[in-house]
C-alpha cells in the first residue's frame, strides 16, 4: 500500500473523514429523532423529550389500522417475491446458458425498467391499470411492483448461474434427469444462496417502494410506506409522536429484511445491481 506522509495529504484525509462523519452523524441523528419522538410524552423546544411512554405505539396501531396494513404489505411483498422469483430465475437461466439472436435487445429490455425512475413509467402504467380495472386493487399493486423487480432478479441471477459449470447439468442429463428433476435436484441446491439474496432484496425494495404503490393502490391495497406518506401528508391531524411510532414500525419491517439480506450480499450490490453489465453497455 502506498502511504502519503506529507502534511497536505494528511489534511486531505482528515477533511474526507470529517465529511463522512458529518454525514453519518446527521443520518443517525435523523433516525434517532424519529425513534426518540415516538417514545416521547411531550417534546417541544427542548433537547430531549419531557418524558417517555410507549402509548403512541398503541395509538398508532389503532388509529392507522396498522394490523390490516401490515398484513396487506406482506401479502403484496411476498406475492411480488414469489412471482418475480419465478419469472426472473427462469429468464436468467435462459440468458445465462444460451446465446441467441436478439439477446442484446432482450437485455436492454430488462435494463430499461431499472433505469427509468418509477414515477416516470408509473403514471402511464397506472393509467393502463385503471382502464383495465386493476387500478386500486391488490393485483394492480403487485403487477406495478413486479416491473422493476423481475429485471432486478434477472440481472442479479445471471452471474450466479453463469458460474455454475454446465458440465454438471450435462452429467445429470446423461444419468437421465428430465428438465424438472435437473432443476429441482441439481440447479436449485446450488442456486439457493443467489436466489435467496435476490429475493430478499426484492422484499426490501417492495416494502420500501413508494411511487409505484402510491400510484396504483386503493384504500384496501395500501402498503405501510404509502400509509406513512398519507399520515405525514396530513400531519397536524394526528400527534407527531403517533406518526413517528408508525415510522418506527415501518423502519423495523424494512431493516429486519435488510439485515437478513446483508448476510448474503455486499451492501454495494443493493445499489450497483447491474454491475455485471459492462460500463460500456
Amino acid at each position: 500500500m502506498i502511504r502519503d506522509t506529507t502534511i497536505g495529504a494528511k489534511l486531505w484525509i482528515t477533511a474526507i473523514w470529517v465529511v463522512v462523519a458529518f454525514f453519518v452523524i446527521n443520518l443517525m441523528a435523523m433516525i434517532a429523532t424519529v425513534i426518540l419522538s415516538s417514545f416521547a410524552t411531550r417534546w417541544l423546544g427542548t433537547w430531549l423529550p419531557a418524558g417517555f411512554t410507549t402509548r403512541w405505539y398503541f395509538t398508532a396501531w389503532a388509529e392507522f389500522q396498522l394490523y390490516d396494513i401490515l398484513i396487506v404489505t406482506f401479502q403484496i411483498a411476498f406475492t411480488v417475491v414469489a412471482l418475480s422469483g419465478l419469472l426472473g430465475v427462469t429468464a436468467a437461466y435462459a440468458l445465462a446458458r444460451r446465446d441467441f439472436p436478439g439477446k442484446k435487445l432482450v437485455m436492454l429490455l430488462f435494463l430499461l425498467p431499472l433505469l427509468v425512475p418509477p414515477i416516470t413509467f408509473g403514471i402511464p402504467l397506472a393509467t393502463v391499470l385503471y382502464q383495465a380495472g386493476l387500478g386500486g386493487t391488490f393485483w394492480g399493486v403487485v403487477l406495478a411492483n413486479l416491473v422493476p423487480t423481475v429485471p432486478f432478479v434477472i440481472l442479479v441471477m445471471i452471474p450466479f448461474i453463469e458460474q455454475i459449470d454446465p458440465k454438471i447439468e450435462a452429467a445429470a442429463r446423461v444419468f437421465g434427469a428430465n428438465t424438472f428433476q435437473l432443476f429441482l435436484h441439481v440447479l436449485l441446491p446450488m442456486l439457493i444462496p443467489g436466489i435467496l439474496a435476490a429475493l430478499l432484496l426484492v422484499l426490501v425494495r417492495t416494502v420500501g417502494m413508494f411511487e409505484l404503490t402510491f400510484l396504483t393502490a386503493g384504500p384496501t391495497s395500501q402498503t405501510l410506506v404509502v400509509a406513512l406518506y398519507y399520515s405525514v401528508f396530513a400531519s397536524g391531524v394526528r400527534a407527531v409522536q403517533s406518526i413517528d411510532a408508525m415510522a418506527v414500525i415501518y423502519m423495523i419491517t424494512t431493516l429486519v429484511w435488510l439485515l437478513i439480506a446483508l448476510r448474503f450480499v455486499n451492501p454495494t450490490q443493493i445499489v450497483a445491481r447491474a454491475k455485471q453489465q459492462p460500463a460500456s453497455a
Partner: protein
Amino acid sequence: MQRADHTPALSLRQRLALRGIDGVTLLVLPAVLFVLAIFVYPFAYGLLLSFEPKQGGIFANYTRFFSDPFLYDTIATTLWLAVPVTIISLAFALPVAFRVRLMTRQRLLTTILVLPVTLGTVLVAEGLLNFLGPQGWFSRTLMLFGIIDSPVKLTNNYWGVFASLIITGFPFTFLLTLSYVTGIDPALEQAAATHGARAWQRFRHVFLPLLVPGLAIAFCLSFVQAFAVFPSAILLGAPAGPTRVISIAAYQAAFEQYDYSMASAIAMIMAAVQLVIVVAVLMLRNLFYRGTTAGGKG
C-alpha cells in the same frame, strides 16, 4: 452456422438449436412478455394518449405545457434541484470512495450508508421534518455553537428537499462509485507510484481516465433518481411554489384533474428531459479513454 443451414439432414428443431434457440431459450419468454405488457405497452400507450388531448389538436398538451409557466417552470425547478445534488454527491463520493477502498473493513460504513437507500424517501422526509425543523437538533446544535442566532428555516422550502435528496442520493452515488473504484487494479497505482507520481498525479493521470466511463454512468443514474424526486418535494418542500417539481405536475394532472392525457404528456416530457441529459453525458464520456481497468501486460 452458415453451413449448417444448407445441410438438408438437419430438422428445423436442430437448426434452431444451432442458433441457440431451444426449450431452454424459451424460458426467457414469460419474463419478456411480462415486461412488454406491463412496461413497454403502458409507455407506448402513454405516448399515444399524450397526443389525444381532451381538447385541441394532437399537440395541444405539449403546447399547453410549454406555454404555461406554471407547468414549464417545473422543468427548471427540477433541474435546479437534481443537477446540484448529483454534482455534489459525485464530488464528495469520489474522494470518500478513494479512502474507503483502502479500508480493510468497509462493511460497517457501507451498511450505514445503505440505510437511507433502503428506508426510502418517505421515511427520510419524515425524519428530516423533525431533525431540520425549527425545534430540531440541527438548528439547536448550530445555535449552541453560536453559528446562528435563531433557528434556520430548512423545511418546507428548497433546502429541505435538497437535504433529503443528498441523504438518499449521496449513499447511492457513493456505493456506485465505490464499486467502480475498487474495480481498478491497484497494481496500476503502484506502478505509477514507483515511477514517482505523486498522489494528485496518480489520480489525474491514472485513475481519472479509467474512472470517467464509470463516473458518467454514476452521474446518469444519480441524476435520473434525483430528477424523479416526488414524495420529499411534497412533504419537505413547498409543493405549491419553489419545489413544484415535474413529477408533482404529472401527479396533479392525473389524480387531481383526472386528465390522463395531459399526465401522460408530462410523463413523456419528464422522460425526454432525462434522456437528453443522459445522452449528453454519455456523449461527453465518449470523448475520453475507454478500455480495461485491469492491469496486465499490454
